[in-house]
């Protein structure tokens, strides 16, 4: 119980700090690496307000590998940071239509294919890519880019490799935290991206 209280307290404190953070992002500052949480001394690496997360396909690959439920290699994984809505309108407001968005926060989001895959009939070689998007009201342009290990605010578009337009739809619930996860389909998996009231799906065939 004490643990739970601490966890809730931590979430609350971090959330409070986030408002300042988002203000600075909106004003175009690049100093969004880390926010000092004065409640928790840490001279080495402070906790990010928009924490990083990782999703694999097959879903929950690492847990399933641990339980020996799966023995084949993973197909792909995405590493991204999870900004939260904090009461703001996200699409068409915080994120401007027609402008590139890093699909997360902090470091540029990274997708890695451990085998060759196909997206919208184009072959994508196994390897590591930056993934970002240009959101519009009715569609997102998804972009795979070769400028890996970079920060999301300045992705070098001369290193764009492929672009894919996908439709957007209303999300089934309102998503406080930006979420990327894979869900299986008959011939592959969809990369599901959801935030606020919006959801988009990129089918990946393998």
């Amino acid at each position: 119980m004490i643990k739970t209280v601490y966890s809730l307290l931590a979430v609350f404190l971090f959330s409070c700090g986030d408002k300042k953070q988002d203000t600075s992002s909106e004003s175009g500052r690049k100093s969004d690496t880390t926010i000092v949480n004065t409640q928790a001394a840490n001279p080495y690496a402070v906790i990010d307000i928009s924490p990083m997360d990782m999703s694999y396909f097959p879903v929950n690959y690492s847990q399933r590998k641990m339980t020996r439920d799966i023995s084949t290699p993973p197909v792909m994984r995405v590493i991204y940071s999870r900004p939260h809505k904090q009461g703001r309108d996200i699409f068409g407001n915080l994120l401007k239509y027609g402008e590139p968005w890093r699909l997360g926060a902090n470091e540029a989001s990274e997708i890695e294919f451990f085998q060759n895959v196909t997206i919208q009939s184009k072959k994508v070689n196994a390897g590591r890519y930056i993934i970002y998007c240009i959101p519009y009201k009715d569609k997102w342009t998804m972009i795979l880019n070769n400028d890996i290990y970079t920060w999301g605010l300045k992705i070098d578009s001369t290193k764009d490799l492929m672009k894919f337009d996908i439709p957007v739809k209303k999300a089934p619930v309102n998503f406080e935290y930006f979420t990327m996860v894979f869900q299986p389909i008959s011939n592959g998996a969809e990369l599901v991206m959801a935030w606020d009231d919006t959801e988009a799906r990129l089918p990946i065939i393998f």
Partner: protein
Amino acid sequence: MIPVLFCEAQTNNLPPLDKSPMDMSYYPTNYPVLKIQDKATEPVLARVIYSRPQKNGRIIFGDLVEYGKVWRMGANEATEIEFYENIKIDGKKVAKGRYTLYAIPLQDNWTIILNKDVDTWGAFKYDVQKDVLRTTVPVQMLNEAVEALAMNFEKADNGCNLIIAWDNVKIVLPINIK
């Protein structure tokens, strides 16, 4: 408490925010930021991806993390370290690539383990057969407790050091490029 309600609101079948959030550190330190500022003076050498459990008032080493047992050095997914060129640790060659990083903490020293079983969870199915390297480093005591497990790299004479700190303990793993 409104933010807490927000957290709990994400109760569909998509993942909620982790309690021990993931983080990533590069060498050169802050490489992605340096890169977009055109300030990167050397190529990317290493990065670590780990989750960050918090002390939350607990005694960590010798208690929550037991001495003498393999520890995943994080939470959730096993901690991953990647080298972008061949390096040496403790005089032993390590080929570039991805590895899982474990530790066996003792009161005075930690054994650091590089293992080739990547994309796994925790240390629950740790397989000594897949070890690539083991090395022992001394424990340094800190005056001020570190709340969340922290890992970062710092420049060193012949490469960099991986710093690992939590609670009142810090260890330094030298990573050499020659």
